[in-house]
């Protein structure tokens, strides 16, 4: 569902550009609004959320999908935790659909999906592992790397049980915005994937904006 935000860039309290292949890891407080902006189009922002007070509670794709009764995320979707509690609510979305089934690329999964000799190409899970190592004040490790959201990715499923990676439906300047319902650690890998036609083999930067 396309829903524009009333918020304007003039009133942000934070704005940061995240290049493809890099990560962003910060706390967003309850009541703050987080926007992820696709600067050039058809980029994927692979995102995990953790409860800041107890990171063993984290975003759960399956609880989110089941509780809303639909496989896709858009404005109105409530992002649920592993304790089945609301973590964030998507308040605006100019893309219309985001994936939470396809997961994140990894060097190992690239060997399966593309070719065994792709194993040394940079991948989202490597960015996450660097993030949890560099930002060790959060106390996270590989153990905490779980099943994420792919903002701006289009992964349609079919009534007969198929799943496909379709061309992106995002474009330059499209964004998704969400209000935190609890203090959350946000961990984004701006996807470096070079093997998937869905980003035209061209990973590009995103902006992250926060409003009080």
């Amino acid at each position, binding site marked *: 569902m396309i829903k524009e935000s009333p918020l304007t860039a003039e009133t942000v309290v934070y704005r940061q550009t995240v290049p493809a292949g890099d990560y962003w890891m910060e706390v967003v407080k309850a009541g703050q609004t987080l926007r992820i902006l696709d600067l050039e189009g058809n980029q994927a922002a692979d995102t995990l959320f953790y409860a800041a007070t107890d990171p063993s509670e984290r975003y759960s794709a399956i609880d989110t999908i089941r509780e809303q009764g639909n496989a896709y995320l858009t404005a109105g979707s409530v992002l649920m935790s592993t*304790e089945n509690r609301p973590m964030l609510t998507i308040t605006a979305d100019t893309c219309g659909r985001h994936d939470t089934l396809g997961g994140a690329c990894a060097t*190992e999964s690239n060997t399966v999906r593309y070719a065994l000799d792709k194993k040394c190409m940079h991948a989202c899970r490597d960015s996450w592992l660097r993030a949890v190592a560099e930002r060790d004040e959060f106390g996270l490790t590989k153990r905490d790397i779980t099943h994420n959201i792919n903002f701006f990715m289009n992964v349609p499923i079919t009534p007969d049980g*198929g799943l496909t990676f379709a061309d992106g439906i995002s474009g330059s300047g499209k964004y998704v915005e969400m209000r935190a319902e609890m203090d959350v650690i946000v961990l984004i890998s701006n996807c470096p994937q070079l093997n998937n036609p869905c980003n035209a083999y061209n990973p590009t930067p995103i902006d992250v904006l926060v409003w009080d």
Partner: protein
Amino acid sequence: MSDAILYEDDIPGGAHWSFTLRRGTVLRLIDLEGGANVGMLFYNPANPLERYNAPDTLKCQHTFKLTAGHCLYSDMGRIFCSIIKDSVGWHDTVGGVANRAMVAAKWGEKTYQEARNDWTQNGRDSFLVEAGKYGLGKRDMAANVNWFSKVAPDAEGTLSFDPANSIPGAHVDLRFEMDTLVLFHTCPHPLNPSADYPRKPIRYQLREAAPVAADDLCRTSRPENARGFANTELYTAGAPVVGA
């Protein structure tokens, strides 16, 4: 696969169990009464940070459901087990588990004090209890498989549970391609619309697998699976293969 049953056992509904299965073992799950649900998670016993990864499993096989020909992948690009036979046709991998509060809200709570082992056990607590036996906990949980359950999307992605998916005697065969820690429960699927807490028993059987042939269904069902088998065979190279 040898027809000789190495071991078989029944698990009542609303219960949980776990074991480590060796590479080269076939686990058959049998829905005794129809309408069963078996929630299951998989770990590498040598390094439990390697666990079942639903997204990797679905995207590399371009599937939303699991059935014969599919492989269940770890996050390390390896195959825990492959589905060599399936009489059901659709097993769920997105419905997750119900927790205690969800079960109580849906079916009412029967405490252990009042109902003894006919209490309303839930999938979330079941996984945490079995995980705890191996030093694992909340941080090790993942999106689980729900054998025998079907949650199908319409064209808009809206999901519905099919209560008629699994009939009495339905069964699915999982061939383990590496040693695997298996946690499972027989608690109700969270979307089961039954008016009463569904308490459905299952039987499981262990058999010795035949060696994986070059034209094996799971190895050849997609080019991705040939590479998944190559990764797994590299990992297990030198390990004794039961049945070889």
